[in-house]
């Protein structure tokens, strides 16, 4: 149905749709410092050309029906105050290699040395003049991920990325890489782009925390060779108003395993897009998110848009999205599983659920399955509900105060998504922090 809608729009472009993009895009690009690029030069030029062809999205675009693209289209972002006070970093207790980005730019002084056994790490800004193994990958998965759904801000990112990490994993590093994002300017437009390749049989855990920029645009391209394993755990908490769009493009080869979990807490307009191409037999791809949205201080709108393509046999994909919304917060989920002809024995699963803590909040879900193979198992479900009164009473009847009981039930609701974080120590860190946040202010 989505495809039909997009085609119909293409056949009869509206007047608004025809005239708007060129000017809007020019203004958008003019406000950005576009790096010329070294090894990325060709990819950046190609991206610019593609972007001019594509234009910026409007409200009539099927995939922007539920999320207003204007905050992302605007040439300059509104200033967003930087919250005062620092809390203890999320994964403080874990052994890890910490790399710090400030408003999307690598901060060498604040980071650990770029040295980890079994991993080559470079930064995009520094490597761009010199050349890199990533030359044939930068922008490649992003470009491949534009079909059948256009993702113009990812194209914009490939053209305009200021910095990022180039990570090539050849072994099994002893600890995770932790990317910490910080803000320094209240009006920075942060555009960063990571390229990650995990070679055959190698493994990487990538942790990401914090937010860069007043407005952020990120792309992570992940290329998994046969038998590779990649585990991504991100925590994005915007204490005050924040606009951000993040993209993950993954290509998963045979027997490889891709797992990504994102925790999003507050923010004004946040969108996370994931495009996962399961290209080799017996591969696994899981993507999950836990979202806490409070529309009390600032309007909250959070959108997860996922597209998983099964192009090989006996592969498993799993989407688990859980959103807790209150004070007029809005949550969106657009998730698609495409099973190509020949992708037999596919096991695809998708669940999106919202827990609405009041009647003013809303959840919009658009689950889609498109299947062209005849021997597959695919299921999807979506629910929207309130706090389970029976469970609330059970907890309170044991003496647990109401506020605390609701925190328990929110954590309970999020449990299936959190279970997608494989590492127990990492999962415990997230549980503890969630508990603190929930107790502080996220529910009442």
């Amino acid at each position, binding site marked *: 149905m989505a495809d039909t809608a997009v085609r119909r729009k293409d056949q009869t472009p509206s007047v608004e749709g025809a005239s708007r993009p060129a000017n809007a895009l020019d203004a958008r690009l003019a406000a950005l410092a576009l790096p010329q690029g070294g090894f990325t030069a060709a990819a950046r030029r190609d991206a610019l050309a593609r972007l001019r062809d594509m234009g910026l999205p409007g409200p009539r675009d099927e995939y922007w029906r539920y999320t207003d693209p204007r905050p992302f289209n605007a040439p300059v972002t509104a200033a967003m105050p930087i919250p005062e006070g620092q809390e203890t970093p999320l994964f403080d207790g874990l052994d890890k290699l910490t790399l710090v980005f400030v408003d999307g730019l690598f901060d060498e002084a604040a980071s650990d040395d770029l040295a980890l056994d079994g991993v080559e790490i470079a930064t995009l800004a520094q490597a761009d003049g010199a050349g890199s193994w990533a030359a044939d990958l930068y922008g490649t998965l992003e470009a491949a991920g534009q079909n059948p759904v256009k993702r113009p801000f990812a194209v914009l990112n490939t053209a305009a990325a200021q910095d990022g990490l180039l990570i090539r994993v050849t072994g099994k590093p002893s600890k995770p890489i932790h990317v910490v994002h910080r803000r320094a300017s209240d009006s920075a437009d942060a555009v960063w782009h990571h390229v990650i390749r995990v070679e055959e049989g190698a493994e990487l855990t990538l942790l990401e925390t914090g937010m860069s920029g007043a407005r952020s645009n990120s792309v992570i391209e992940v290329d998994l060779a046969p038998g590779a394993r990649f585990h991504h755990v991100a925590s994005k908490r915007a204490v005050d108003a924040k606009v951000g769009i993040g993209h993950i493009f993954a290509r998963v080869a045979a027997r490889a395993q891709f797992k990504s979990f994102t925790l999003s807490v507050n923010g004004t307009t946040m969108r996370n897009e994931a495009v996962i191409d399961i290209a080799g037999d017996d591969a696994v791809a899981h993507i999950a998110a836990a979202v806490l949205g409070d529309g009390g201080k600032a309007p909250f709108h959070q959108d997860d848009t996922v597209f998983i393509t099964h192009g090989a046999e006996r592969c498993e994909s799993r989407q688990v999205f859980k959103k807790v919304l209150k004070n007029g917060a809005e949550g969106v989920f657009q998730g698609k599983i495409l099973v190509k002809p020949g992708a037999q024995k596919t096991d695809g699963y998708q669940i999106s659920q919202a827990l609405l803590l009041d009647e003013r909040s809303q959840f919009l879900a658009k689950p889609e399955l498109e299947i062209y193979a005849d021997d597959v198992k695919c299921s999807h479900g979506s629910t929207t509900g309130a706090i389970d009164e029976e*469970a609330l009473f059970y907890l309170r009847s044991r003496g647990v105060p109401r506020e605390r009981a609701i925190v328990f039930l929110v954590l309970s609701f999020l449990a299936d998504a959190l279970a997608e974080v494989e590492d127990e120590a990492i999962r415990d860190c997230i549980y503890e922090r969630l508990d603190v946040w929930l107790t502080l202010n996220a529910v009442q």
Partner: protein
Amino acid sequence: MLKIDNLHVKLEEEDKQILKGLSLEVPAGQVHAIMGPNGSGKSTLSYVLSGRDGYEVTEGSATLDGESLLDMEPEERAAAGLFLAFQYPVEIPGVGNMTFLRTAVNAQRKARGEAELSSGDFLKVVRAKAAELQISPEMLKRPVNVGFSGGEKKRNEILQMAMLEPRMCIMDETDSGLDVDAMRLVSDGVNALRSPDRSFLVITHYQRLLNHIQPDVVHIMANGRIVKSGGPELALQVEQEGYGDLLAEVG
């Protein structure tokens, strides 16, 4: 200990009267059983006493040691010493049994102005009490009631009761869904908790449970009221004759 006087309760959503002038007194240290046909209002009584939403008290009172229960929040009633063992204990995925129990114990202690138990002290006590109820350490770690069998859920209720040390325990059809062995375990757990300053109100359909947990008084409930009270022999009479004759007798 527990004193219920002329209690009238209706469902909030539909204008339906469930309890119609129920009076009952359970002195300290006693075990009282309530039996009655389906729909007589037994579960409603347990819910109203423990403070569940959805019921409206239109008349009457219920006090625990002279304090009105009906004005308190459910957690306040728990801290005051009331405990309801659920007929259908609720599963709470993602919340560890131990975490839940420690939170409950310490919330009650805090509400009563007592010092909270340290993790170490709590662990020691809970392990010992769990062992008595044949609850494995593995079960303690699992999410609350998730994947527990019917018997395990009921044993978990008794474990909570043992940890929370309430003074007034209401047991809502704790015997339903239990096999013979599980019933013995649960009953042993309850009997171990019997003491001169703790009382029990045991709601059941069957006399069998009362062989294990011997009541001081048996009440027959019908149509929202206690219609007859007597000794343990009353339960035997119900078991043998059913409610028909009894109810006809009291009109």
